[in-house]
């Protein structure tokens, strides 16, 4: 045995050789993704949003306007070269506020989706794999949450906790996880019937091992797709709460709150609400197109090759 092993120990495979199949898979993904206009548009919008979120304060032409500076001489100016998106009732540059608002939205989206998936995925996997009473208990609670309109429930929670952006995020995270439970439970139910799970059981693998090594990796595709789409939806929901005054408070630059204030200046000072609205629209569109694009390349059933 040792002689055989020594002869093989000479060749140390390169990174390229070890990961040839992964590289090929990714090349295929890139090929498919770049071939779709809407996917690329979604990716571009999301990238733009991420750049704004990362470098917002540096990119904004009037950074002081995002922190509540009052310039009464410049109130409600129409879009011009100096202020491409115009100014608001405090004389602040709307472009600067929209740019800086991206970071708030990203944070909101990430936290809500992260907590939602963080609670929902483990519950879904356990419900799907265990079955019986555990499943019944988890699924009934999930259905209870799903039966109440999410935004209305979040509204009630914020009302109880008191308005504010943190409470708004907590409230939305609480209503967000049931969607993941549903998705992951259904996926787990089908994966646990696959032979490789039965084979692992026959080997004597314990349940946590099976969940971690067999079920979770095979659930990842729909989770990634849903998370991408949820980013957009979470941002939209947080903006809705901001709009009715339960989320971020002015002068904190948050798109929903901006529109909320701006609605009293419609339609004469249209730019005040139009540009934050456009920012929400493009961000949500971007995440949805990205999610669609990911589904198309990751789901073998929607792929004809």
């Amino acid at each position: 045995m040792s002689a055989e092993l020594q002869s093989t120990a000479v060749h140390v495979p390169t990174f390229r050789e070890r990961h040839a199949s992964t590289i090929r898979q990714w090349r295929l993904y890139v090929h498919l993704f770049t071939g779709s206009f809407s996917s690329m548009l979604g990716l571009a919008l999301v990238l733009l949003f991420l750049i704004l979120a990362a470098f917002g304060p540096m990119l904004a032409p009037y950074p002081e306007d995002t922190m509540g500076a009052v310039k009464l001489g410049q109130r409600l100016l129409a879009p011009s070269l100096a202020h491409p998106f115009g100014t608001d009732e405090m004389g602040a540059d709307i472009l600067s506020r929209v740019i800086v608002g991206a970071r708030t939205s990203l944070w909101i989206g990430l936290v809500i989706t992260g907590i939602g998936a963080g609670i929902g995925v483990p519950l879904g996997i356990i419900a799907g794999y265990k079955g019986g009473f555990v499943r019944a208990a988890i699924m009934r609670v999930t259905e209870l949450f799903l039966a109440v309109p999410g935004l209305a429930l979040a509204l009630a929670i914020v009302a109880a906790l008191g308005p504010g952006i943190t409470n708004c995020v907590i409230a939305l995270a609480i209503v967000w996880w049931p969607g993941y439970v549903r998705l992951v439970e259904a996926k787990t139910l089908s994966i646990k019937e696959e032979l490789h799970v039965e084979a692992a059981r026959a080997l004597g693998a314990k349940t946590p091992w099976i969940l971690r090594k067999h079920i979770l990796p095979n659930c990842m595709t729909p989770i990634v797709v849903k998370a991408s789409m949820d980013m957009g939806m979470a941002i939209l929901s947080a903006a809705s709460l901001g709009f009715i005054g339960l989320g971020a408070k002015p002068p904190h630059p948050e798109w929903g709150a901006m529109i909320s204030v701006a609605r009293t200046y419609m339609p004469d000072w249209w730019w005040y609400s139009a540009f934050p609205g456009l920012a929400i629209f493009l961000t949500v569109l971007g995440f949805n197109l990205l999610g669609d694009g990911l589904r198309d390349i990751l789901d073998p059933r929607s792929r004809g090759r």
Partner: protein
Amino acid sequence: MTALLNIDNYRLDIPTFDGVLKVLDGIDIALEQGDTLGIVGESGCGKTVLARSIMGIGPRNARRVSGHIVFDSTALDELSEADWRRVRGVKISMIFQDPMTYLNPLLTIGRQLFDVITAHYRAQGKPAPAKTDRLARCVRLLEQVQIADTQRVLKSYPHQLSGGMRQRILIAMALAGEPKLLIADEPTTALDVTIQAEILKLLRGLVDRLGLTVVMISHDVGAIAALSRRVAVMYAGTVVEQGTAKSILTRPRHPYTRGLLAALPDIEGDAQPLEAIPGTIPNLINPPSGCRFHPRCPRATAICRQEKPETRSVGADHVVACHHAFD
């Protein structure tokens, strides 16, 4: 020669992300009216693509590189989709491996059979006869496939019937247009061995009584031997050997055919040790040069790597494509 089906130097490519699959590489097959041909080969040899190409339902992105499929003096590969409707199901019919997939689970067998009959009249542009006549024809079709309690079966839903019964119904539907050619793609693979024997007997009877011409595709040499008078052996997109079943099965000339038969365990159990063909089927994006079987062939020499072997005759109705065929 007026062969009913004539496939002449047919080449088919399928472009994929990794490159172009050369799935069929110069297929030559001729089949007389009333004859039965079994195409046998392992997965990936191109037999299913070939069968579907005859039926005009090949892979959508496939490209014909050369050759023709001529049926009843019509070049099928030049037909428009409108013309195909007067051929498919009418002159050529097909049955499949898994009959359940091809039946609508929400409609009764009677309804589906009735619809098929009505559709055939419409496709030919003829007025459909009275409803009672068409119903009578449903019953006659079921009797043709030896279903006894026709009334019960007509009222049944697909899931209420056994796999063998469903395959009979699929055969009845295939016969509804009174086709000249029936293509059977692995018709018995999904069935139990006792049911398989019944279906093969039924098909045999239909060939004898109706003068039907049958092309049967299978990986199961036994099923092929039970039905077909002639056999074509396919390997990696080529027909390596073709001739009468008796001649091919008892005196195979191609090393692949010989390997395939030696790999079959024998139910009679006489101590013939199994022989496996070494290696695996080739990648059809970069198929082996010359003879596609040469990397796995015990008889391969330099010429096999360089030249694709010509098909040559080695007896009455027996051709082989090999540089070093057995005598």
